[in-house]
């Protein structure tokens, strides 16, 4: 075990404890770690974007493969820099417009397919009382119907609609409760991992110092 590894791991341990100290209350250690991670991560992402984004998506296509059409988004990208000037900042709107147009256009058919039609298809199941699954299918369908009624905006929640919407929000709450309960396990695992890391540091240092 070389000294460098021990020092780096000790730094990591220190920062881990800095963040945990936040559980008690805000304090200088937390502030230090917070500002450090903000600076480091922004720098890290910028550099990674350069190596894994700019080089393969702009530089290499244009200079090595002669795919000149990649210059078009490059120019648009540079237009966002117009925001540095008060007078010219409106130019950046063209970039925003292209970006939004593409994002929105891709989303229209995909969202309709993935969220609406797929769920619709999955819910059209035989409903009957001959076996238990048929009954469950019926309940699922009724649940979906009530849930959808809750999301009606142009009708007040009164009368029959109100009753169905009320049932709808109950069903949504069951969904949320289940979601909450299911997530606890994963979060506990995360904490267990951090504690294991701290324990490993302890084992490493005791081994280095006293040889056991």
């Amino acid at each position, binding site marked *: 075990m070389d000294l460098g590894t021990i020092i780096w791991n000790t730094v990591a341990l220190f920062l881990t404890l800095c*963040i945990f100290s936040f559980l008690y209350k*805000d304090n200088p250690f937390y502030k230090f770690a*917070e500002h450090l*991670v*903000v600076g*480091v*991560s*922004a720098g*890290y*992402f910028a550099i990674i974007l350069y190596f894994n984004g700019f080089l393969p998506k702009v530089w290499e296509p244009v200079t090595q493969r002669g795919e000149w059409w990649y210059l078009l988004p490059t120019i648009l990208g540079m237009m*966002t820099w117009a*925001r540095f000037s008060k007078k010219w900042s409106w130019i*950046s*709107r063209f970039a*925003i417009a292209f*970006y*939004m147009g*593409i*994002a*929105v256009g*891709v*989303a*229209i*058919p995909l*969202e*309709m*397919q993935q969220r*609406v*039609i*797929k769920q*619709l*298809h999955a*819910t*059209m*199941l*035989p*409903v*009957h009382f001959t076996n238990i699954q048929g009954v469950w*299918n*019926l309940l699922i*369908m009724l649940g*979906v*119907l009530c849930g*959808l*009624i809750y*999301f*009606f*905006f*142009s*009708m*007040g*929640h009164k009368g029959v609609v109100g009753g169905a919407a009320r049932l709808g929000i109950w069903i*949504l*709450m069951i*969904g*949320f*409760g289940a*979601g*909450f309960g299911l*997530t606890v396990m994963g979060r506990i695992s995360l904490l267990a991992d951090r504690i294991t890391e701290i324990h490993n540091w302890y084992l490493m240092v005791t081994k280095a110092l006293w040889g056991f």
Partner: protein
Amino acid sequence: MSPIFFYLSFWFDFNRINVLVILGLFFAFVFYFINQAKKGKSLFVRRISGLDAIEEAVGRATEMGKPILYISGIEDMDNLQTVASMIILGNVTEMVARYDVPLLVPICRPFVVPVAEEAVKQGYIKAGKPDAYDKNNIRYISDEQFAYTAGVNGIMLRERPAANLMFGSFFAESLIMAETGFSTGAIQVAGTANIHQLPFFVVACDYTIIGEELFATSAYLSKEPKLLGSLKGSDLAKFLIMIILILGALLETFGITEFSSWFFVR
């Protein structure tokens, strides 16, 4: 196969005709109601209490002389929840501009910065207070989820906003932010369409905007007739979906599967 059909199949994916038909119907509904709205027909919208709470939160911030924090989620502008969030940000700014409290907007993705700047600036202009716009309140923090969370936690604890408004696409950071916000005593209104995070907002925030309500928010807050019209179009689509569902299940029960399999997307 007829030659025309054969030729067409090069230019049109017939596997996806169901998507096209449903989209076409949906567009027709929305157009129809937008036109109705343009003609001046008044359109009713039910109450969404979480959205009424925004006004209350802004009012309280004014009384306390403390800022309002607006968090737009951690995804880029190609996520439609972020887009919706930016539109809501414009509406909220208009509300905030009427009072004299600062609006803080920490941001996670660089490309959201210019969009948020425009939205906030327009909000102030619309409220007739263009000078109140302060560019420095819209801050990029970090692309990294938890670095961003750490930064937002810092703002919550040190600038002590009276209200935290969280609209957009949130992931695991939702509960960290909401719990920190709760500990500072802020009123919290949150909305997201990420189903896996809704439970945490429901548990930790004062009001939660659920799923589709997020996309109805701008119509609700602005009361602009055209937007309300599209809301009505969506409702009609939902009604149609309910009928299709019932019909599909009934046919399926009697062993007729052609109807439901038409909705299968390859």
